[in-house]
Every structure is written in C-alpha cells, then in structure tokens.
C-alpha cells in the first residue's frame, strides 16, 4: 500500500466519522433528544470498522428501510434479518455484532455514510411501524442479534465464532461493546469461555467513554483496570485512543494469537460537541431542558455543517 492511499483511507474515514457525529447531532436536535454522546465517542470506531476493518460484501437490503414485518416466528415467513445490510453471509466474510443496541442511531448514521442506507433513512427512526427502531433489534438495519438487554451479544458472538471455526470459515466476528457491559457478570462468563476455547476469530471494540445511565462509571461501579483484568482472564487487550484512526486500526493487523482480541477505545463522550460537557456527568441521553438550550445546539450544528 502506498503512502498516498494510506492517507486516503484516513481522510475518507475522518470525513465519515465527522458526518456520523453531525448527522446524529442534527437528528437529536430535530427529535428533541436522543443518544448523542454515544455518537460523539464512537464515531471514529464505527467509521474505521465500516471503512477499513470489516470485510463485508455489498448490502443485500433496499436502501430505503423496510417496514416492520413481524417478529421471528415459525408462522411468519416475512421476517427478515437486519444483518443483510452488512451483505451476504460467506465463509470468508466478516460479521459485525452490535452489543449496546441503544447505539443503533450511530450504526444507522454509519450505514448512511457508507452508502448502505438511503440519505434520508433517519426519517423512519423511532416511527411507528418502522424497523429503524430506537433500540435496534434483529430486524433493524445492520443489526444481527437482539441485544438491548446488555451483555448478551458477546456470548452470542462467541457461539457464532465457535460455529464458524467448526465450519472452517475464515471470516472474523467483530463485536462492538460499551464499557458499562463489563459490569455484567455474563460478560466475564463469555470472556472466560472464549479464552477457554481459544476463539481467535473474535475481535471486540469497546467504546470506553466512561459513561452510563447514572453518570460516570467510576462513581456508579468501577470496572478498571479493564485491560489488566481481560489479560488476567487470558484475552489480549489493547488500550488505544478511540479517536485516533491509525490507533484503532493497528490492533486488527497484529498477528492472530489463539485468544480473542479486545480493543479498548478510550473515548471522549463530548468529542466534537463541546456543548455536551456542560451536562457532565449526565451524558447518557440528551434531553433539552429549554428552547434556548436547543437553539444553542442548533447553532453549533449549523456552524459544524458550514465548516464541513
């Protein structure tokens, strides 16, 4: 790879990340609230995943999101999986499992930026009868498992990875997690099991934004030192700057070891939207307290948009 094309991927990825952040900000303002800090912290992570790391085929879904066609049932032939937005299943292709389902808005925005969803797809967000749900389920664009009950994705990804190894598939299973999920016991059960079965085909990106519903994780329930704990469990854990594209990408190029990989992306929940810092430590869900506050966010957004 030449120096120029390397710079190209980063330019393009940085543009995607900026657009994800701005699109989510715009959406949150229009809807008078939403999960904004998650986009601020994880925009680079999603952008690198979709633009550089994931080996996916072209989307097999219509760019305009489909209507909700019922839940999975034996008597419902119309059910479809949101994973088709990530392309076909093939032995050599990767898979992406989104664990914190309230990051769905970030995922939808990413799918728009990489051309897998239509430009105006977010107008279906949280609308009755739509699949573009606030908390993504497995019919939602880009979503393969129903993991709004946090910490269940890692175990499912482990099962998928084990199955893929049994089938001699070479594609990897990537998981996006939030740091709060390391408070759940099931997460550690999953880590132990993936290490026990040497599931080297699993790679986990954790958005370490240090925030949860009740406030700063350090005050709600500390999980640090996370990298040391994961290493003690036998996994490979790498701490990186979650807004540094090269740093996010580099661990995926390490020689594969016979253990799962955790990339701990240290992030800033107000990155790119400094106004959010006023609300710290309550950053989990943005709800405007006044029209005046909303206007300030609108002005901020418009300035961002002008800067491009």
């Amino acid at each position, binding site marked *: 790879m030449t120096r120029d094309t390397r710079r190209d991927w980063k330019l393009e990825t940085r543009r995607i990340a900026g657009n994800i952040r701005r699109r989510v900000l715009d959406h949150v303002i229009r809807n008078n609230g939403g999960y904004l800090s998650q986009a601020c912290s994880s925009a680079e992570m999603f952008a690198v995943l979709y633009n550089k790391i994931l080996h996916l085929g072209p989307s097999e879904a219509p760019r305009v999101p489909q209507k909700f066609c019922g839940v999975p*049932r*034996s008597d419902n032939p119309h059910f479809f999986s949101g994973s088709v937005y990530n392309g076909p299943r093939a032995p050599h292709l990767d898979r992406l499992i989104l664990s914190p389902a309230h990051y769905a808005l970030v995922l939808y925005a990413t799918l728009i930026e990489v051309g897998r969803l239509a430009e105006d797809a977010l107008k279906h967000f949280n609308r009755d009868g739509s699949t573009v749900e606030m908390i993504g389920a497995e019919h939602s664009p880009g979503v393969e498992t*129903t993991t709004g009950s946090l910490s269940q994705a890692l175990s499912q990804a482990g*099962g998928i990875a084990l199955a893929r190894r049994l089938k001699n598939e070479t594609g990897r299973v990537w998981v996006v997690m939030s740091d709060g999920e390391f408070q759940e016991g099931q997460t550690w059960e999953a880590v132990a099991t993936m290490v026990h079965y040497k599931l080297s085909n699993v790679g986990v990106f954790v958005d370490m934004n240090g925030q949860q519903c009740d406030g700063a994780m350090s005050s709600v329930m500390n999980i640090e030192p996370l990298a040391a704990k994961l290493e003690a469990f036998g996994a490979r854990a790498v701490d990186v700057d979650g807004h540094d594209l090269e740093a996010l990408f580099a661990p995926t190029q390490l020689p594969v070891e016979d253990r799962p990989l955790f990339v701990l992306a240290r992030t800033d929940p107000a990155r790119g939207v400094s106004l959010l810092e006023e609300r710290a430590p309550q950053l989990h869900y943005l709800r405007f307290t006044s029209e005046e506050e909303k206007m300030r966010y609108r002005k901020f957004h418009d300035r961002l948009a002008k800067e491009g």
Partner: protein
Amino acid sequence: METVLRPYVETFIRWSKDRPEVVVLSADLTNSCEVARWRDTYPERFFSMGMAEQNMMGFASGLAREGFTPFIHTFAVFIYRRPYDQLVMSIAYPNLPVRLMAFLPGITTPGGVTHQAIEDVALMRATPNMTILETGDATEVETVLDVAHAVKGPVYVRMLRGEVPRLFRREEPMVFNRARVLCRGSDVVVITAGITTEEAMRATSALEHKGVSITHLHVSTLKPFSDPSVLEAIRTARHGVITLENHTIVGGLGSAVAELIADHGLGKKLVRLGLRDTYAHGASRQYLMREYGLDALSLVRAVETLCGEPTGITEQDLARVRLQAVHSQAKAEGL
C-alpha cells in the same frame, strides 16, 4: 411394570450419529444429565460451558444461528430460572432451534427448593415461540428427540433420568400435540403429564373397580395445547375434570385445561391437583407426592368430591407403591 435404566443414554448417542449438526452444551452437570457417554462418543461436538448458564444460552444461540442444533443439558431450574432473560432474548425471541433438556422436573428430586423446577411450565408457557414437551415414561424418553427435532423453534423438554418406568409400548412413540388415551369413561376426565401419569394409573384402576367411569388422558405436549381429542374428552365429562401435575397449579397443565374449558365455553368443573402455590422441600419423591397432594389418594379424593359420593377406597387399596431408593445406582448423585 418394567423399569428401564437410563433410557436416554444410548438413545441420544444412537440418534445423534448421523446428525452432525447436533452439538451438546453442558454446565457442569454432564453425568447428572446422562450425557457423559455422549461426550466420550462425540468429543468434538461436546462443549463444556462451566457453571455459567447465562453465557451458555448465548453460545447456544450463536451456534443455532450458524446452522447447528444445540442441545443444552442441565437441571431445569438452571435453564428457566437463573438465565431467563438470556433464554428469552437470545433463544426464544429469534425462534432458534435450541433444545433445552431440562432434568429434575418438579419434585422428582430430594434436592429441595433450589433444585425443584415447580413453575417452569408456567414460565415457558408464557414465553412466545417456546414449545414444551414432557416425558412420562421410558418410551417417551426414547422418542421425544424425534418430536423435538421436528419443531422449528426452541423446545423445552422436561426429562426423566435414572430408573424410568415403561408405561407405554415401545411401538407407540410420543406424538406431537396428541394425548394418549389410557382409559375411557363418562363420569370424570383425568388429565396427567410426566410422573403423575404413573401415579394416576394406580388410582384409575381402583376407581374403575368401584364403578367410577374415568377417561384418563396422558399429555406430553404442554405447549401448544390444542389437541382436539382433549377438548372432546372434556366435553363429554359428566361430573368434571381433574388435572394432576408435577408443578404448581398456577400456570401449568391445570391452567392450560382451565383456559381450554373457558375458551370453548364448556362450563365443566375443574379440580387442579399439584403444588398449591407453594414451594416444596428436600425429601423423597414418594413422600413429597403424598405430602403435597400429588398422589393417587389425592386423586381418588378429588374424584369423590366431583362425583359427590365416597368410593370407600383406602390407601391400602391403591396399587403397590413403586419404591425408589434416594440413592440409586442409576443416578450420578443423590439428587
């Protein structure tokens, strides 16, 4: 009556031979759930998950999503109580073909309240996409695999282990959503499932002797519960219906029958025998069945109540009780 030693062991090994998609997950109760020999026969398809049931549900989900048919083996309580959210969100919601082999149903164990699955049927009935099967004898243990395998989504199976009586002829396998008619009469309809069927058979023969005419149905599919022959039997019951279940009377077989009666406007009296909204404790199966009113004598008394006259049947009249030692060579432990 013939008693069969561990009918599941060889059956499951044989059945899995030409089904490479079948994998087994176990949570540190491999021998207790009679799959140690299976593990030794197919080590590449057996996955020890340790004492971590929540994670086991997720791994089963992932394996099922990739085309495998995971068979989870553990005690029933560790399938539906401890990891209920995982069972529902990771397996039942996506309607995945995971087989939940639930051992020690109801008060079949002296393991006490922590090991006795007394409200599992209620929870599994309330769980969309779930199918519930219950084995009542060796023939059903031997044939439940085919029934479960034909179901597209998840199946919860109340399994029997150790020394299991053979009540039904080998040539008459379990059939999905079809009750077995054990005797036909017009006064009272008795509906049983699992281990209560053997117990009820002791009472029905004594009752027939005293001139009470009984229809006795054995049910092995608890969900769906739409067998037309059950409906027809209830319709013809002169005095009413009695259910006898190895479960709390809230939400299980008795409730399913009550719903059927109400839904179809049959207006029949119903007596639900089983645990009366209570936990049990650690003791032998015979003791617990007697103590909590799940035995033949309780059934006789319920029949007398419905018919409005005593039969004169005493405990001594009831057929010999099958004595089963708590510590049996047929079980991996004393549970």
